[in-house]
């Protein structure tokens, strides 16, 4: 697959469609699986990794689903291309930075991604726009069944599917929902909300960010345990809390409009102003400002911007995307200048995000 063809699309998770997509960016389910007759990746020899990669690549290609997949040899990619796949959430940062034989198979919709030789031999991921865990689960179950009939996954009658880290053992499932929660951040309620989530053993992570400081008010909620409950129960555990968070965020947004209308309007307008006029701007600041503008559009404070466009900008202003769109490698300074240029051009033209850079 030519990665360039991907720059023209934005990928499933930023499509901006699906239920509750004003707050829920995407729903994702992933399964961790290992082949029974090889050491786990961290203890596998170079030969083992190559054998596992070939076995899984060939058997995945032999499934009915295999015909619709493109295989990318991640081990042979340039760093910028690996980074590009990370920005699209098709591979993990760990997978990008790992060593040895490894790859990823993805479908054209960018809903399914199968990482080979990540922390586990196989990490299957299904992602859908908006709040739709059921669709993601049904899709991934079918994928898992197809591969499972051709590959003997390591399984223990009592501990379930065996994984390199005991934190994933059992179902091997991680159910995540990515939410945009700017109003909870502005009203300083976000920490309180997360503390209550930890109490019911759900994990919270910021998008791209390390630690608790989420970039651009995007947060990912996921299950922390994988053993002792069925996949459906774990889906429910995450799924049940999302409507509550949506409700909190909606109420916080209403509060902001009702009580601090001028303030919010000012914040949002300034964010929009900077994005339209800056001459140099970092990826972090861009994400923060786009987050504010996104909220402004949803609150009806900014009229002429589409949510899908903001989602597109969120991914296209990331370092690797920016460089691939420009067609040259750029250092941090030049990227900041190019990013500002791209944003100005986009907003001046009032154009769609599909317009070219040049």
């Amino acid at each position: 697959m030519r990665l360039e063809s991907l720059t023209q699309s934005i990928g499933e998770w930023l499509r901006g469609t699906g239920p509750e997509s004003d707050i829920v960016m995407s729903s994702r389910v992933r399964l961790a699986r290992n082949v029974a007759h090889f050491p786990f990746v961290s203890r596998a020899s170079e030969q083992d990794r190559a054998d596992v990669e070939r076995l899984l690549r060939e058997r995945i290609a032999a499934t009915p689903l295999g015909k619709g997949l493109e295989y990318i040899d991640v081990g042979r990619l340039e760093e910028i291309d690996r980074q590009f796949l990370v920005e699209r959430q098709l591979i993990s940062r760990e997978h990008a930075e790992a060593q040895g034989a490894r790859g990823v198979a993805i479908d054209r919709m960018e809903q399914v991604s199968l990482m080979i030789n990540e922390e586990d031999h196989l990490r299957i991921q299904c992602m859908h726009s908006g709040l739709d865990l059921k669709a993601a689960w049904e899709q991934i179950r079918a994928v898992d069944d197809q591969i499972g009939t051709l590959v003997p996954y390591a399984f223990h009658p009592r501990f379930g599917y065996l994984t390199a880290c005991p934190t994933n053992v059992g179902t091997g499932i991680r159910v995540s929902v990515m939410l945009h929660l700017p109003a909870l951040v502005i009203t300083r309620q976000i920490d309180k909300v997360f503390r209550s989530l930890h109490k019911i053993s759900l994990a919270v992570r910021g998008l791209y960010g390390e630690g608790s400081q989420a970039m651009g008010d995007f947060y990912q909620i996921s299950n922390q345990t994988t053993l002792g409950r069925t996949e459906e129960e774990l889906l429910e555990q995450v799924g049940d809390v999302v409507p509550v968070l949506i409700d909190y965020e909606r109420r916080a947004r209403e509060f902001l409009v009702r009580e601090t209308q001028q303030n919010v309007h000012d914040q949002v307008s300034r964010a929009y102003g900077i994005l339209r006029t800056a001459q140099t701007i970092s990826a972090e600041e861009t994400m923060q400002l786009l987050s504010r503008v996104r909220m402004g559009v949803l609150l009806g404070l900014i009229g002429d911007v589409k949510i899908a466009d903001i989602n597109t900008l969120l991914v296209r202003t990331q370092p690797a995307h920016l460089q691939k769109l420009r067609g040259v490698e750029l250092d941090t300074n030049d990227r900041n200048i190019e990013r500002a240029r791209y944003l100005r051009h986009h907003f001046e033209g009032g154009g769609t995000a599909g317009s070219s850079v040049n």
Partner: protein
Amino acid sequence: MKCQHCDKQAVFHITELESGSVRELHLCEDHARSYLNQSEVAAAAADEEAEGKPKGGGLTGPLGVGQTADELALLDQRSCEMCGITFFEFRNQGRLGCPHDYAQFEKELEPLIANIHGATEHTGRRPDRGPGGLPEGTEELTAVIGLRRGMKEAIGREDYEQAREQRDAIRAIEERWLGGAGTAAQGGP
């Protein structure tokens, strides 16, 4: 607040950073002592090893609560028959070596798994092996990891008779589980 391992009052509140996430421990005096004791053992052992591996990345926390330092040191030296990883290496890295480790270290992993998940029994989906008489558990297939290691060692000491036996054993198991597309089918001695 109660101790998370028993009904006594928690007097120690410890925050641990492990594999990127923060974990809070609330322990009574007894459990705190055994916890701190075994983290010290791990730290001392890690210093001895002096491999420059980052400390605290492992799942050192809830392991072996109630075990003495001596018991733990002994346990650390035990290794997996298949992949050769020692329990110490696992504790240090937080990653297991192969699927057999769950059987090899079952007794030791159980309290750790119970601590992480609050359960020790899988209740979710199970593999559908179809007709053909293959068991649900994959221990038999995982034994190939040990056979492969044995084969390499046999080749190393030029014991080709032994190596051939190991290869044939691998082929038989892989044929049964993978239908002849295994590793021994392509290469081997």
